[in-house]
């Protein structure tokens, strides 16, 4: 990060987060810390089988267990007709199976709830779960999304008649935003001066792995039913609880206390949350559910999981003439709240920063007997960026061009903004030359290329790879009219309220719902500047529908770009009201009142009053203008007119040990253009975390299912997350071409690191070994996969012996095949 002089404004200061003390010292309150008196605890009996009909459920032993109040199936709760919501019908004929709160006679993925135990303690509930005897009739699971999409495939939901939930198409010719891709490809095939590059990439399935497992407490004892939930979306959860269970919205209060991470993984409306509501109503007692880590990995929605078939037509001079994208996207067994729309969010990003005359995007959403997928950091956009950025490298290889130079040839130049893209978006600002040039300087691109050449020449067993990725993303979800045109089930606005207290302090409510982002700090900085009050005089209130009744919550890099602007607009209204009172008290015309640094002054005089004095005057209400309410408090709802488009250039260098296949990252440089920066320290944190997550997809993570549909790595022993020890020290910088679509000039940063780093790493790994004959390595590019690719390239037989992973790990390094449950001696 660049070190600059500390700015005189709050905006731009690298403030340590106000939230940190309570979060880091563990003095925070998460949902599981909340236990109203009389709380009963639930635990869910879960299917151990991916696909089966249920012959019978014997609850008798469990019901007799100590501390157990009851064991319930969907039928026992009268909840057979309850279906969890999907808010994004991407096509009018989208096939959407009912997702039950508990299985109705059949299970469709391993981990699906079958029955629920209610007990005096969480331990008693857990003990009794083991006593529920479910008799399953196993069926062949549907696991391969591509095979599942074919005619005649075994059906996950036979009543739907197909495993394809929907096929969504964007064609630039039909939309009138560009040319015809089929013609571009046909022309390229017939032209000696053009080439057609075809590739298939796989986006493996990932587990969001947020730190705090999901949890929910429902207290029915007040006039309003109160729901505490570890959720990113308290407002959406309230509305959806009404939609799902018919409880009037006015009778619901939803609180998201401190929430320990989400990454998109906490935007769902959960069967367990609905169960807590149903049971609380039935029993008249507070009900609590907190999942275990294994339950979380097995049943919280997963991310990514696409097959990408890509065809690009390019002139031999390097100019792209058309890009045809076909995706299969694995939805899992049911549709999540916004799951079907996740690949569609990517549709608009396959052209990325490049000028393309023609683009077609076709996506088939497919059901399988796996955990459902939904938003995960970047949601559709990392997948799209991976596809285009890997393709740019492939085209560079085909044409023998430097990958940076080829990108520059095709990207939108800084003097071409605003630019209407082939998918109909208008990029307001950007400067790809600036970000790339700075990244290249920091990286020493030329020096590393020389070293790479030397290692290749000497046949060094350790080869150097250089990986590149640029990216842009559509942030600030989203203009409500655009969401309407995509059939999304909500708007994209955000709400705020700013109120001046009698003593001059400021309370701000926001509909954004932080779960680790540092909103309290960043929003305080904005308000402090706008109102000219001290940073510590601003309190940001959020995450409780009784405190901040209106909002659309936090996801899609929207909190600052949409929620922050609502706060700015509300603060402007406060100033307008205060100005009237100031004019009245100062006996001046309102036109002569100026406001700066928290002071209202009469132009040309030394008369003035501080905003705190005005707030006190409004509170006392002894003397204020006729025709005005004695209050400065103001609401605002901001609905953006366009997305914002942050971008950046990421470069990495890694050593690839050709003897073992090990990839060791050596240098990672990213220069991101995220517009104006409110708090550089928070930005740096977001970028670091994002990079780690994106690198993890490239090198380490994958949710593996065996042929019976069991998730075999459902513990952190088996599901490989990197730690700081596996990552290099990152060089991160920002440059800025401020957004013109919002008054702060901000663009959003939450997803940036995750989006660009994955293709940068994979491009680098391939760059290290391509000269040895390797053309593709699927993610994650583990040591074994790299080594095996090298063996195949050498012409060696590298048949992989079948893996014999017998069960999820148990905090054990090994699983004994003779003792798969891992009983210790």
């Amino acid at each position: 990060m660049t070190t600059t002089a500390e700015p005189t404004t709050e905006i731009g200061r690298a403030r340590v987060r106000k939230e940190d003390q309570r979060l880091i010292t563990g003095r925070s309150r998460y949902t599981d810390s909340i236990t109203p008196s009389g709380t009963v605890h639930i635990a869910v009996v879960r299917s151990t089988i991916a696909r089966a009909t249920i012959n019978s459920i014997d609850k008798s032993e469990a019901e007799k267990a100590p501390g157990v109040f009851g064991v319930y199936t969907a039928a026992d709760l009268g909840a057979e007709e309850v279906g969890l919501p999907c808010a994004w019908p991407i096509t009018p004929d989208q096939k959407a199976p009912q997702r039950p709160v508990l299985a109705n006679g059949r299970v469709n993925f391993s981990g699906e709830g079958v029955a629920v135990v209610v007990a005096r303690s969480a331990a008693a509930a857990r003990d009794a779960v083991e006593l529920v005897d479910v008799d399953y009739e196993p069926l062949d699971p549907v696991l391969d999304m591509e095979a599942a999409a074919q005619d005649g495939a075994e059906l996950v939901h036979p009543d739907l008649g197909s495993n394809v939930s929907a096929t969504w198409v964007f064609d630039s010719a039909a939309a009138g935003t560009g040319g015809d891709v089929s013609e571009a490809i046909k022309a390229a095939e017939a032209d000696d001066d053009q080439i057609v590059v075809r590739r298939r990439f796989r986006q493996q399935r990932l587990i969001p792995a947020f730190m705090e497992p999901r949890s929910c407490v429902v207290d029915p004892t007040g006039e309003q039913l109160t729901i505490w939930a570890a959720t990113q979306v308290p407002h959406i959860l309230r509305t959806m609880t009404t939609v799902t269970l018919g409880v009037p919205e006015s009778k619901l209060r939803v609180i998201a206390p401190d929430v320990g991470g989400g990454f998109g993984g906490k935007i769902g409306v959960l069967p367990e949350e609905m169960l807590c509501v149903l049971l609380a109503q039935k029993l008249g007692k507070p009900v609590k559910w907190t999942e275990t880590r294994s339950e979380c990995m097995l049943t919280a929605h997963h991310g990514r999981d696409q097959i990408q078939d890509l065809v690009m037509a390019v002139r031999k001079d390097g100019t792209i003439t058309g890009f045809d994208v076909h995706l299969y996207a694995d939805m899992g067994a049911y549709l999540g709240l916004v799951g079907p729309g996740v690949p569609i969010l990517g549709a608009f990003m396959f052209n990325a920063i490049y000028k393309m005359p023609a683009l077609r995007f076709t996506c088939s959403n497919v059901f399988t007997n796996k955990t459902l997928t939904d938003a995960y950091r970047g949601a559709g956009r990392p997948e799209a960026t991976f596809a285009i950025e890997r393709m740019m490298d492939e085209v560079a290889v085909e044409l023998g061009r430097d990958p940076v130079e080829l990108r520059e040839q095709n990207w939108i130049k800084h003097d071409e903004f605003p630019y209407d893209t082939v998918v109909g978006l208008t990029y307001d600002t950007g400067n790809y030359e600036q970000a790339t040039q700075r990244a290249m300087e920091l990286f020493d691109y030329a020096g590393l290329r020389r070293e790479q050449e030397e290692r290749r020449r000497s046949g060094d067993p350790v080869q150097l790879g250089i990986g590149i990725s640029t990216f842009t993303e559509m942030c600030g979800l989203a203009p409500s009219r655009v969401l309407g045109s995509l059939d999304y089930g909500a708007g994209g606005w955000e709400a705020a309220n700013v109120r001046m207290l009698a003593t001059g302090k400021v309370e701000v409510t926001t509909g954004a719902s932080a779960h680790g982002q540092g909103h309290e700090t960043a929003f305080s900085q904005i308000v402090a500047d706008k109102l000219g009050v001290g940073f510590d005089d601003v309190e940001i209130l959020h995450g409780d529908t009784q405190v901040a009744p209106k909002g659309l919550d936090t996801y899609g890099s929207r909190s600052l770009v949409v929620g922050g602007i609502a706060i700015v607009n509300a603060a402007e209204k406060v100033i307008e009201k205060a100005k009237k009172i100031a004019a009245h008290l100062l006996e001046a015309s309102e036109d002569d009142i100026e406001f700066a640094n928290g002071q209202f002054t009469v132009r040309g005089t030394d008369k003035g009053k501080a905003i705190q004095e005005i707030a006190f005057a409004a509170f006392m209400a002894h003397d204020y203008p006729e025709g005005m309410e004695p209050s400065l408090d103001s609401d605002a709802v901001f609905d953006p007119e366009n997305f914002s488009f942050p971008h950046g250039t990421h470069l990495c260098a890694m050593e690839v040990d050709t003897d073992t296949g090990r990839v060791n990252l050596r240098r990672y440089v990213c220069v991101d253009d995220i517009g104006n920066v409110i708090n550089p320290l928070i930005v740096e944190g977001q970028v670091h975390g994002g990079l780690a997550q994106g690198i993890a997809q490239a090198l380490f993570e994958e949710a593996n299912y065996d042929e019976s549909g069991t998730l075999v790595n459902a513990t952190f022993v088996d599901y490989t997350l990197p730690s700081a020890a596996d990552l290099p020290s990152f060089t991160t910088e920002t440059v800025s071409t401020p957004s013109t679509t919002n008054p702060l000039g901000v663009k959003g940063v939450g997803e940036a690191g995750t989006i660009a780093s994955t293709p940068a790493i994979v491009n680098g790994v391939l760059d290290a070994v391509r000269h040895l004959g390797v053309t593709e390595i699927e993610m994650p590019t583990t040591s074994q996969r790299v080594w095996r690719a090298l063996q195949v390239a050498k012409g060696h037989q590298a048949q992989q012996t079948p893996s014999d992973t017998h069960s999820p790990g148990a905090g054990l390094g090994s699983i004994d095949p003779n003792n798969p449950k891992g009983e210790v001696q």
Partner: protein
Amino acid sequence: MIPAKFDYVRPSSVEEAVSALQQAGEDAKILAGGQSLLPVLRLRMAAPSTVIDLGGIPELKRIGEDDQYVMVGAMATHHEVMRNDLIKQHVELISQATETVADPQVRHRGTLGGALAHADPAGDLGAAALALDAEFVILGSGGTRLVPAAEFFQDYFTTAIGEGEILTMIRFPKYTGWKTHYEKFNRVAQAWSMVAVAVALKVDGGSISEARIGLTNMGNVPIRATGVERALVGQAAGPDVAKAAAEHATEGTSAPSDADAAADYREHLAKVLTGRAVLAAAG
């Protein structure tokens, strides 16, 4: 997650521990540092009737020496082992292997004896103990018996510790002045070994006079790479010698296959890592 119900006993002497173990019967489990047992309990992969916690017996934490041996109490933590000067001086290979175990939190809780008695083939300490011909002091109602490392590891998670017995101490012959190295290969920095190689070399006048090599996770139990040892003795340690000797690394192994590494890849790694470990030890 919440373990199934169990009785908990915390004896204050080894004699008490043995009698508690005998009273509790075959469903009892010994709790040392808990770094393997607790996850297993929490995942309900084990549901012992009684857990006997050895944490209250000070004598099990002692590290000492006599003329021939360094004696390490079974309840000495990895952290204590790593920092101990006697071990560093006379059995440095154990310090080196211990340094690679998990992360600092685990090393402050986990114990040498617990890890060895757990006998996970992916654990790092078994191969080093085997290579060094450690001896295991096992206490039962009939008194103490001494089991050599070559007989201690019997199968996956299975050792020579019998029903009603407790591992109280591990004693290592002194290898003062030997050149040692532990070469570990894992998926991420804090993970179990995919494969690892423990090497101790006695070098006299530039040539290797004695070699002791143990392999981690190349079979159900730690394995002694005797073929490599034989190929090294009498040679001067250099790249060609190391490489040629390492070709013997897979002799007598039966590498497991899992999602991280199929057997053929493990076999390949065993050779590469053995070569590297020998060179690194010879320094």
